[in-house]
């Protein structure tokens, strides 16, 4: 009986650890949900001036059902490429989402573009 209880406890603990793992990450290097959410909250959301629900189904964060999430992934790949292929060889500081977005969903495309939110 004691063994059974210990086994059940261990199973519950292992399930809990598994439940804390980040799911469906294709670009970001994080292991846990906490690391991922911290990064999103402190970097992505303020850079774009959005809340979580702009890209996520707030009841199921790993889900890809929101098309904005895939756009963000492509933007991350673009940023990584710029840093790796262009800025690193020049020994320049890396760029981030904020470098262009500055708190807006759509950064201005030219110096005359005053609009903050034009759709593609």
């Amino acid at each position, binding site marked *: 009986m004691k063994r059974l209880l210990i086994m059940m406890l261990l199973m519950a603990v292992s399930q809990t650890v598994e439940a804390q793992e980040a799911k469906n990450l294709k670009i970001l290097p994080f292991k846990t*949900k906490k690391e991922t959410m911290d990064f999103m909250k402190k970097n992505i959301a303020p850079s774009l001036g959005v809340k979580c629900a702009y890209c996520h189904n707030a009841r199921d964060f790993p889900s890809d059902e929101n098309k904005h999430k895939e756009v963000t992934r492509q933007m991350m790949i673009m940023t990584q490429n710029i840093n790796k292929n262009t800025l690193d060889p020049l020994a320049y500081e890396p760029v981030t989402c904020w470098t262009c977005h500055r708190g807006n969903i759509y950064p201005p495309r030219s110096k005359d573009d005053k609009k903050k939110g034009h759709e593609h």
Partner: protein
Amino acid sequence: MMLVSQISKPGLPKVLRTTKESRVLFRKIVISILLVQSASAIPRFAIKEGASCNTCHVNPAGGALRNDYGMLITSADELPMPKTASLITLDDVGQLTDHLRIGADLRMQAITDSEESSVFPMQRDLYAYFDLKGMVGLYVESEALMKKTEYWTNAFFPFLNSYIRVGRMRPTYGLMLDDHTSFIRGGNLQRTHGLLKEGLSFSPMTPPVNTAELGMFRSDFLFTASLSNGFLAGEAAEASFLGPPSNRTAVIRAEYSSSLGDYSGIAGASYLSEGSTEIKGVFGGISRDRLTWTGEVDFAGGWTGDVNSVASYSEIAWMVEPGIHLLAKYDFFDEDTEVLENALSRFSLGAELYIFSFLELKVQMRKTHVSGIGMSPTEFLFQTHAWF
């Protein structure tokens, strides 16, 4: 009019200040506070985020068990004092599996005035939520102190941005404050000041009832509409799922939450109807930097006999630094708007300290003024609140 005659009865004290009366009053306050409102939330955090309460709670209408965001971001990072919070981290222990989350809210409270003091458990709520990919959920809440259980199931329809929630619960109305003694919620359950009603119907004494709720998300709007089986009438009205038409409670609520520049806020309105009782009101709040104002005003017809009543709530919170919040609150309840001498005004000053990601200490001092009678003794409240 009934109240005027009560107040002007010969022998009724004008000011409740004698020792014996103070003790009776104190006991009534203790009993009143013992009974805690469940499924509550702290709306000023939602106002500060410029987001709906469901940002942090599994209930799509907000309150009680927290979700991933509520635990991993708000509880872990945004609420507590950074120095103390880093000493003990509990992470998200309630997420047992990918589909099952459990949680709890436990509160102990001490209350004292110049005559007496008392310590008692205030809340022992346990929660469990089974979630299937954010599409279907099953929720159970055991309110151990009240010996009541709330349970519901919900289904989301992403293509319509809507959900349906069916079960045994309290309808969604106004701000779901954690302080049930606010007059916009349950107020003084023991009618401490001798009025016929000292608050609205959203008290812990009002049990969860059979309810069906439809919710719709549209951009930054959240609409809910529900039908319940005799929420105000109580458990006597449970002949069938929704009971006889005269006992049905219809509630609608609309809420808009957003941020603009340095400002964020929520604005909304609610309407409840059951039999000859109608309660309608507006609620909301605005936040900038470290200051947040939260408010609600409700007009109730037929809630206290056949007269019109008003309840309001206003709170200013200042986050001195992360984890340290100072609050000033003003609660108002007028049982009969046509009579001058039956209004309660409660002034509260307090502090909330978020020590760890799972522990809060609350200190509060408050006084109540009853028009035509006078000021009650100053009460001091100390509360510890633990959750996961």
